[in-house]
């Protein structure tokens, strides 16, 4: 077999674990003595950051565990955990693990049907949830989840009149736990001691771009070894601070805010609400930060809108220094030394622009930051790095305990995801698919041997991504293996690559490119309401709704300009020059997870979108200049409505060599 392989350096047998510290509960017990008073987790509540030390972390988890034990929790039972990132929910996960059970975190914005599927599939006996919203959802689906016995809620607001006997507050649970402890001294400690590294630690349901969610089973060993290897490679320490704001059900949050936090002993910070993340970020000033490209982009868009509104001389100054920073960063990435004048000016820019900007973003203290989940636009990536923020690309998946490759400090390239972590082997098959073997490789999908067999082969995970390894052993991801296609004349067509280029425009929020088996490429685009809305306001363009704004001729011109720019940049990329976007349209609604157009982690479900908007795609390939469409919209409460619209079709300019075709 001819395979390109690369492996991360490993200093010792990568999956060795001290039996005294081979589970998360054991590690927390250790933290509670070793780092007793150090802050383990903070939560902003009633406007004030409330800190909990590692000894409190253990004490709270212990009470919850004993409370669950009092309700009859047996080893191997599953606890569903649903809600925003809250310390008690992290404690509930640890409590479940301490009793030899398995936490199953669920996406808190899932609609009832999705929750019911996972609750039923995971056979959860217990659910620990945040508030009334989640309780209501569970009460609705409870009839179809016969195994669900108890629902515990953290926030009692609005629940006072609920009489269900299986419903109790976290405070009541802890009371029962305290009573249970006096009757059964040493129970918690004995249960913790029974745990072993190869026990199941968590089941993470992947949202999956196709079909029903699959529950990836990860052991304590998977997570602890992976966390430890990454901590050592990245130089994380107990004084670090991370902000926990991405869904708890997502393996990334489980790795950063739970696994790594417990293993390294660093602090996790839970924002007050989803809407306050940016200002909470500023108050905490994390040293360790993760965000998917979409969030990096939102932050940049928010900044640029404010810059555009600034006083003209100030605006000019910011623009000048941002350009300068980009120039010097490009030189650095190419391993060149920037010109002396640029270096001096950069120092000035640090005082005038970069420092204040970083401070304003809450990123002044960041030592390590990651972006992952989707490819990041090179300009976006450069922007943050040019401000002196150490953003690096990361590659991983639920099935590999979240982490596979990370760019090393000082070895960052725009278009790769870096080199494998210690203990991780990465290989490319003949068909171009990336496969991975590591101590983090999962135990399989829960109750789904068929899917396990498709993904797991001799200890190697098939990632489903198409990639290449470059000369320095960096992995470069091109697209989903199954999404890479060919135009009817045989030209290679990588849709995601094109979409990412278009999406880097602040005006375009989402893009879907179509071209497999077709004569040329067309695109369905979503405008960014904040950016385009602001743009329209400054030009006195009145609009009534998202759909109305998207169909304005001026907005089409604006977006056409962006598409033309992408086409021009494609000319420089040789092979891809043939896949320039000929026609595009602006969708009348945002692609949404509630309509199954995206996954809960906001990845476009390409097949579904192509099917749902088939008339639009046909319109793009025929000569018409507008199409009528009817689309189904699902509201957050599960109701379904129809939206009708008349959508324009626009042509883009084809640049350079592609124009001849």
């Amino acid at each position, binding site marked *: 077999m001819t395979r390109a392989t690369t492996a991360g350096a490993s200093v010792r047998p990568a999956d060795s674990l001290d039996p005294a510290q081979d589970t998360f509960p054991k590690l927390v017990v250790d933290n509670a003595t070793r780092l007793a008073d150090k802050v383990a987790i903070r939560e902003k509540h*009633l406007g004030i950051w409330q800190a909990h030390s590692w000894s409190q972390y253990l004490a709270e988890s212990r009470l919850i565990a004993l409370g669950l034990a009092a309700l009859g929790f047996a080893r191997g039972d599953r606890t569903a955990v649903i809600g925003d990132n809250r310390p008690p929910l992290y404690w509930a996960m640890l409590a479940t693990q301490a009793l030899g059970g398995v936490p199953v975190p669920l996406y808190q914005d899932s609609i009832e049907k999705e929750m019911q599927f996972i609750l039923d599939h995971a056979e959860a006996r217990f659910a620990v949830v945040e508030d009334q919203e989640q309780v209501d959802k569970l009460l609705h689906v409870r009839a179809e989840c016969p195994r669900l016995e108890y629902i515990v809620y953290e926030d009692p607001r609005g629940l006072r009149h609920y009489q269900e006997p299986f419903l109790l507050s976290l405070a009541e649970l802890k009371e029962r736990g305290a009573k249970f402890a006096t009757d059964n001294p040493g129970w918690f400690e004995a249960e913790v001691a029974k745990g072993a590294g190869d026990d199941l630690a968590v089941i993470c349901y992947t949202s999956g771009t196709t079909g029903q969610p699959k529950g990836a089973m990860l052991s304590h060993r998977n997570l602890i070894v992976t966390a430890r290897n990454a901590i050592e490679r990245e130089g994380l320490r107990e004084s670090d601070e991370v902000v926990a704001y991405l869904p708890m059900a997502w393996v990334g949050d489980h790795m950063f805010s739970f696994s790594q936090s417990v293993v390294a002993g660093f602090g996790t910070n839970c924002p007050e609400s989803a809407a306050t993340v940016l200002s909470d970020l500023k108050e905490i000033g994390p040293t360790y930060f993760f965000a998917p490209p979409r969030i990096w982009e939102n932050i940049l868009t928010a900044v640029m809108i404010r810059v555009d509104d600034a006083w003209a001389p100030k605006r000019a100054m910011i623009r000048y220094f941002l350009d300068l920073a980009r120039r010097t960063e490009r030189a650095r990435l190419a391993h060149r030394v920037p010109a002396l004048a640029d270096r001096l000016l950069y120092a000035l820019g640090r005082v005038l622009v970069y420092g204040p900007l970083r401070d304003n973003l809450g990123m002044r203290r960041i030592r390590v930051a990651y972006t992952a989940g989707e490819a990041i636009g090179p300009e976006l990536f450069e922007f943050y790095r040019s401000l002196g923020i150490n953003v690096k690309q990361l590659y991983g998946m639920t099935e590999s305990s979240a982490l596979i490759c990370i760019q090393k400090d000082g070895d960052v390239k725009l278009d790769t995801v870096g080199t494998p972590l210690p203990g991780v082997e990465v290989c490319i098959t003949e068909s171009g698919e990336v496969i991975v073997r590591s101590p983090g490789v999962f135990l399989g999908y829960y109750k789904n041997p068929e899917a396990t067999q498709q993904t797991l082969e001799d200890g190697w995970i098939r990632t489903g991504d198409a990639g290449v390894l470059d000369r320095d052993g960096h992995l470069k991801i091109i697209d989903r293996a199954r999404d890479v296609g060919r135009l009817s004349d045989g030209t290679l067509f990588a849709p995601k690559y094109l979409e990412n280029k278009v999406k880097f425009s602040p005006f375009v929020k989402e893009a879907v490119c179509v071209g497999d088996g077709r004569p040329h490429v067309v695109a369905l685009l979503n405008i960014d309401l904040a950016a385009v809305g602001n743009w329209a306001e400054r030009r006195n363009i009145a609009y009534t709704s998202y759909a109305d704004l998207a169909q304005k001729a001026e907005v089409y011109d604006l977006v056409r300009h962006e598409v033309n720019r992408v086409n021009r940049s494609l000319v420089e990329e040789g092979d891809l020059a043939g896949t320039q976007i000929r026609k595009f349209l602006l969708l009348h609604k945002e692609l949404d997870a509630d309509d199954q157009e995206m996954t809960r982690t906001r990845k476009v479900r390409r097949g579904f979108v192509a099917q749902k908007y088939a008339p639009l795609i046909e319109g793009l390939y025929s000569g018409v200049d507008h199409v009528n469409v009817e689309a189904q919209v699902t509201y957050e409460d599960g109701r379904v409505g129809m939206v009708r619209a008349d959508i324009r079709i626009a042509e883009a300019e084809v640049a350079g060599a592609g124009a001849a075709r």
Partner: protein
Amino acid sequence: MSGAGRPPSLLEVDGISVRFGAVQALDGVSLEIARGEIAAIIGPNGAGKTTLLNVISGFYHPNEGAIRFAGADRTHLKPYEVATLGIARTFQNVALFKGMSVLDNIMTGRLLKMHGSFLLEALYWGPARRQELEHRGFVEQIIDFLEIQAIRKTPAGRLPYGLQKRVELARALAAEPTLLLLDEPMAGMNVEEKEDMCRFILGVNDEFGTTMALIEHDMSVVMDISGHVVALDYGRKIADGTPDQVRNDPAVIDAYLGVAHA
């Protein structure tokens, strides 16, 4: 209205009339609002709803009739005296301090609860500091309750209308009222904002036990949240009862749809 099992009345309005020159705004209106209920006052434009609210809150004084609140007569009190009794209100047109932050706006609702010397307040020292922290703590609970954490420090004038209404509700709640008067709390809101507001009104009633009287035009909202509806037309009370009784009352149908003359 004094059916068996009804909790005692918190507010009794007895035959009040209000005249502005030749205009008879209210004409002998009587009603009772029981402790802990959400009462809705409905009626076509110009029916006298806001005038009724203004009389209850002490902004107008009735030409005739009496008002008893918590058992004591208070027909001729001034607005600030009414406020100290535990009656708070919101306005049809939002009346916030536009340049002040949301937090400061809500803090003004605590004004009547603050006692202290000007000097100590200025120095933010001793009892003044302790008191300020206590009030801030209370206000933070309201902020949490109404889910407006994200706009705590935003100047009120920069907020969209729906949020301004919510801030106004927060300010009224800060006074810990026994009776809360809401003048069209959902005017100009979209469906989602209305649903949020309904949730908050029901939540406040449930959590703090606040009695509420609200003016509202959206009948579906009225039917959803209130247990007691009073209908006015041309300054007269034309119906009083449960939402279903009032909805099916011929006088109310006539007032809204015009009288059919067969």
